[in-house]
């Protein structure tokens, strides 16, 4: 038995520091092949056991909100551990928002319905900003939105600073244990073992086992994928400079565009595409870049729509979307303030989805889904100007083939009018494809050995209290929330488990809240590690480029 703090280590997220140092206290074949572990099996493997009532795996905003609520409910820090490779809960989120063109000074795509730092959502971000900056502007905006103004949203920096303050208040860092979680297995006799791989030198053994009654898994997106043709081109031509994903650092593209008149192909029709276009257009309009933008939509929205597409597009049961379920759209885009219709945060749609099962639930997710972006005055103005002046072109279709053409890339774009050759200098992929949950080693293990199953849209199947169905272990319970549970009873919401160690006077019922959602998904640990490795390959002159480019991607739990 060791103290939890003994497993805490120097903060770093460099995956290379997680490489195994010594083979003592490692997972054995017997452990890996067994669904239920006894205490004795773990001890035989030489893995030290830390007893703690509650662990949350992930350490992003999902874990943060969970422990925040439990702290508010009276659970002491000594009863909980956050197992994470991240130093701060907002670290992955900030990385993703920054590279997808929302640095701290830019505004997110969420409002105060989702304040991860504040259980009440009051005072709102708008009130805070108004008080801090001594201005009535944010208040007028929230009063008049969305009729007279765009939806008001906070700057990313404000959300991060607020989380930082709350993290200090609840003693978040006392609970943080650095490392990668390899597996969570049920314990014979009840509860769970969570196997952590601490960074090199942080513990005497390769693994440390956390024995707990409750486990919460909030590991974010299993990973982000490139469009297949883009990935193929990058690999075949070893070109990671001209074809970039919006979620990887690609500042070099904008720097190059400022220096040379170039053509950029932007792919995607969501919020990230909007942000990237804004950056390209800002650089053109304010900093003199001579960039021509070709914007490729796969689906072109020209008016009223829903998740199936334009109202004239085919949908199950035929017909058009009912007048009560139509979204605005135009110029290719489907317009929606936030990443879901607002009432999933606590109104009609939340109530409706809560009561739906199976196919019906999958259907409503589909109907209110679809790629979309907010209608914002600035973006409309810039796009209008681009169309008028001939430097913003829209294409609709898919890419059949990509070939290098000198320093440029020749795309064969299949449109309704036939195949069109489009030669560009850079391609920015803003489609944000997500990987299957089995791409994440921990989630895959939960499906294969933990009793977990898939929900109607293919993610982890959680109950209305966010317990992962099929994983109950004696008096213990395993919870999951966030992107890995998308398709559940609560779109984009969170719900807390019972508080272990609850004291008299604590809140009686499970609390509910939502994780802040920005323009971008939350923790994408695996993908970020990959992207970070690629980023170094491009930007760090001290590292031999080729060796890094060919380096196999490190995923969470690989070591």
């Amino acid at each position, binding site marked *: 038995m060791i103290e939890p703090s003994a497993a805490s280590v120097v903060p770093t997220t460099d995956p290379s520091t997680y490489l195994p140092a010594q083979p003592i206290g490692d997972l054995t074949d017997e452990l890996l092949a067994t669904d239920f572990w006894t205490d004795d099996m773990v001890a035989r493997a030489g893995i030290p056991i830390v007893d703690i009532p509650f662990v949350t795996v992930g350490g992003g905003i999902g874990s943060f909100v969970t422990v925040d609520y439990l702290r508010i409910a009276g659970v002491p820090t000594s009863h909980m551990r956050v197992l994470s490779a991240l130093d701060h809960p907002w670290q992955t989120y900030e990385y993703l928002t920054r590279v997808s063109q929302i640095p701290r000074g830019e505004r997110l795509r969420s409002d105060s*319905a989702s304040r991860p730092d504040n*259980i*009440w*959502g*009051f*005072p*709102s971000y708008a*009130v805070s900003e108004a008080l801090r900056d001594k201005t009535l502007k944010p208040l007028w905006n*929230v*009063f*008049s*939105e*969305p*009729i*007279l103004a765009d939806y008001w949203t906070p700057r990313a920096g404000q959300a991060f600073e607020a989380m930082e303050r709350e993290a200090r208040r609840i003693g978040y860092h006392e609970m943080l244990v650095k490392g990668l979680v390899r597996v969570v297995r049920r314990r014979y006799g009840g509860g769970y073992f969570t196997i952590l791989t601490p960074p090199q030198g942080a513990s005497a053994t390769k693994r440390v086992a956390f024995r707990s009654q409750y486990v919460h898994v909030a590991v974010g997106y299993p990973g982000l994928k490139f469009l297949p043709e883009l990935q193929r081109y990058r690999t075949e031509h070893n070109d990671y400079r001209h074809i970039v994903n919006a979620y990887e650092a690609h500042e070099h593209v904008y720097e190059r565009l400022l220096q040379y008149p170039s053509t950029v192909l932007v792919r995607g029709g969501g919020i990230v595409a909007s942000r990237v276009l804004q950056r390209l257009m800002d650089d053109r309009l304010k900093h003199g870049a001579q960039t021509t933008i070709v914007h490729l939509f796969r689906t072109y929205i020209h008016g009223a729509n829903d998740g199936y597409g334009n109202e004239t597009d085919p949908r199950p049961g035929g017909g058009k979307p009912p*007048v*009560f*379920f*139509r*979204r*605005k759209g135009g110029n290719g885009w489907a317009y*929606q*303030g936030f990443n879901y*219709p*607002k*009432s999933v*945060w*606590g*109104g*009609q*749609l*939340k*109530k409706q989805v809560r009561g739906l099962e199976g196919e019906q639930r999958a259907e409503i997710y589909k109907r209110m889904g679809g790629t979309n972006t907010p209608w914002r005055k600035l973006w409309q103005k810039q796009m209008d100007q681009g169309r008028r002046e001939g430097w913003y072109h829209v294409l609709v279709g898919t890419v059949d083939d990509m070939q290098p053409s000198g320093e440029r890339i020749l795309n064969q774009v299949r449109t309704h009018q036939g195949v069109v050759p489009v030669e560009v200098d850079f391609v920015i992929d803003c489609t944000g494809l997500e990987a299957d949950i089995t791409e994440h080693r921990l989630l895959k293990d939960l499906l294969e050995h933990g009793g977990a199953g898939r929900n109607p849209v293919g993610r982890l199947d959680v109950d209305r209290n966010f317990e992962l169905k099929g994983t109950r272990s004696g008096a213990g319970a395993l919870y999951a929330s966030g992107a890995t549970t998308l398709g559940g009873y609560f779109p984009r*919401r969170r719900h807390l488990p019972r508080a272990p160690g609850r004291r008299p006077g604590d809140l009686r*019922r499970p*609390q*509910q*809240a939502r994780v802040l959602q920005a323009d971008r998904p939350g923790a994408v640990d695996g993908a970020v590690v990959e992207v970070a490795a690629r980023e170094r390959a491009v930007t760090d002159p001290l590292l031999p480029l080729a060796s890094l480019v060919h380096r196999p991607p490190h995923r969470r739990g690989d070591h």
Partner: protein
Amino acid sequence: MLPTLNGRLQTRIFMLVVFGGVITLLITPLLPGLDLSGDSYRTTYAILLTVLVLGVLWELLYHFIQQFRWEKDWPTMFGLLTGINEGALVWLLLALEVVPGVDGVPSFWAFFIMFGVIWLVIWVWTNGPMRVPFIRWRFFGGRIV
């Protein structure tokens, strides 16, 4: 606000009973033409009750209008501006002397001040501090129970 129909009705009744009740109690003697007498209170509470009963009907209409909105939300501004149509209707009924429990036509300014103060306080409270004592309210579409 992201109300469900049930949430709308519950919030409406709760706010008018709690805030409307207390404010009416405090404000009645200060209103033009009214005093601390039982008659004055009978008049103001009858008006409050009228606002409440009609308000329940109004909520049905608002809920219907909300269905045309993709977001199924109820913008903050609507919550304030609906005070105009609701207040106008109540005043019309008062002027027509068809409100039970109210004898004669009360002073317009008495009605205006009372209705305006109650409406404004409830609107501000609903859009902010309500989230503190009732932390689940905003997730339950405005339901209190």
